[in-house]
């Protein structure tokens, strides 16, 4: 192995992964071009669009501005791992389907990762305003944000039903 590469040991979607990566590669490049996890999108590639949002130890971060070295020993969750604990399909993904919130779909993986963190941290059904704030770093160029907000609110209600409502 040349000096320009290092061994990255990390956990991706619950699976331990060890992969050789050049020092100057971002986490996004390792996910997409070494691990074939192409769900996280390479949009602006400089922190404007949020299409590359993944979770690092449960926090939404931009994989395009995260050095691969910064993922050493940490837990990376991408959209591919979102449904693992839910039999393959997360309630958010189900809601995006029912509300036709994916539209062209390019921004969807990033939005799902930001939205999942919001619902998990709140631990309750969320409201439109907090969803809008949590998704403020995820651009949708189809600009159909209404359906996206509706879908996230709906998913959070499915995950945290109000007492007495089944």
């Amino acid at each position, binding site marked *: 192995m040349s*000096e*320009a590469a*290092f061994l990255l040991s990390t956990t991706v979607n619950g699976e331990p992964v060890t992969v050789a990566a*050049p*020092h*100057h*590669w*971002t986490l996004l490049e390792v996910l997409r071009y070494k691990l074939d996890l192409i769900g996280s999108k*390479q949009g602006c*590639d*400089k*922190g*404007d669009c*949020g299409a590359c*949002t993944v979770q690092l130890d449960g*926090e*939404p*971060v*931009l994989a395009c*501005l*995260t*050095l691969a*070295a*910064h993922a*050493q020993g940490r837990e990376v969750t991408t959209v591919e791992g979102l449904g693992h604990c839910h039999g393959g399909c997360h309630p958010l993904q189900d809601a995006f389907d029912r509300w036709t919130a994916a539209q062209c779909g390019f921004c969807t993986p990033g939005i799902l990762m*930001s939205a999942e963190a919001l619902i998990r941290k709140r631990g309750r059904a969320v409201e439109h305003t907090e969803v809008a*704030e*949590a998704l*403020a*770093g*995820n*651009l949708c160029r189809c600009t159909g944000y209404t359906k996206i907000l509706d879908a996230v609110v709906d998913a959070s209600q499915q995950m945290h039903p109000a007492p007495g409502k089944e």
Partner: protein
Amino acid sequence: MLRLPPFRVVSPDTVEGVVAALQQPGARLIAGGTDILPNLKHWLDRPEVLVSINRLTALRGIVRDDNAGVLRIGAGTTLTQIAEHPDVQQLFPSLAQSAGCVASPSIRNMGTIGGNLNLDTRCRYVNQTEFWRGAIGGGCIKSEGNVCHVVPKGRNCVAAMSSDNVPVLMSLQAVIVQAGPEGTRTVPLCDYYHADGTRHTHAKPGEITTEVQVPLPTSARRTHYVKWCVRKSIDFPLVSVALRFDLDKDDVSATISAAHVVAGVLGARPRQVRKLDAILGLALNDPKVAQIVSEAAFKQCKPLANVPYETAYRRRMIRVYTRRGIEAMVNAG
């Protein structure tokens, strides 16, 4: 797709290790990476080594130190952690505001306060791809050229300090701790910046900011931060104003005993608005206060064409946003 130039990454786990690693030729510091990596992707620099503070857990956290009379914020603390911290929200609401309005939630999860205080200056002619810069004739003083596109025939770089937290922490009279090869030293933040966009801080070579100390309030006060940007998130501010008014009692009808007003995004150094003596002795909710302060800010702040939007319009927006900021403070009670 924007490729990073090749470099090595080292991640020491002590401040001493970081300082030692920074002595290597061509070494640069990386914390959250949200400022340096876009700049490197634009090939504005080609460092041989990036020294990461990723493993430097000692630099994270917020501690209220009543003996020293300061709130200590570790330089590696993320902007999200600062914005959400109860002590910051209670003692320094304008800091919670400014830390909570930087860029976007995911960038605030990554970006640190140390990185934000050492944010590189920005200019519409600099923060572009190498191809773009080549198309205007090969860059400028701050990139690979030798001219200034903002001030024709200018020899001094006028790139803007666009940090949201710097004007606020200057208005709060914060002090930063710098660790370097010669040991540690403290610098009042107001003295840390100078008006040269290519070298806008007084950081010595190989130094790292380790801590921000914000003096605890000794009197009642009202603080606020206002910024104008194109969209409500992601964008850098086009003008920004940090406001702080010390009061003789905890009420908006109380008399103003001191005023600290700092405007950002003008040049490489935020501008402290002076000549505010006329408001001392007035009640904060006296409409004359908003008028006098916003007029002083308008007179003393002259934006340059270093970030988007017309300079004349941005200058008027300084007046508008200063007035609105004071009105918001008064209306909040």
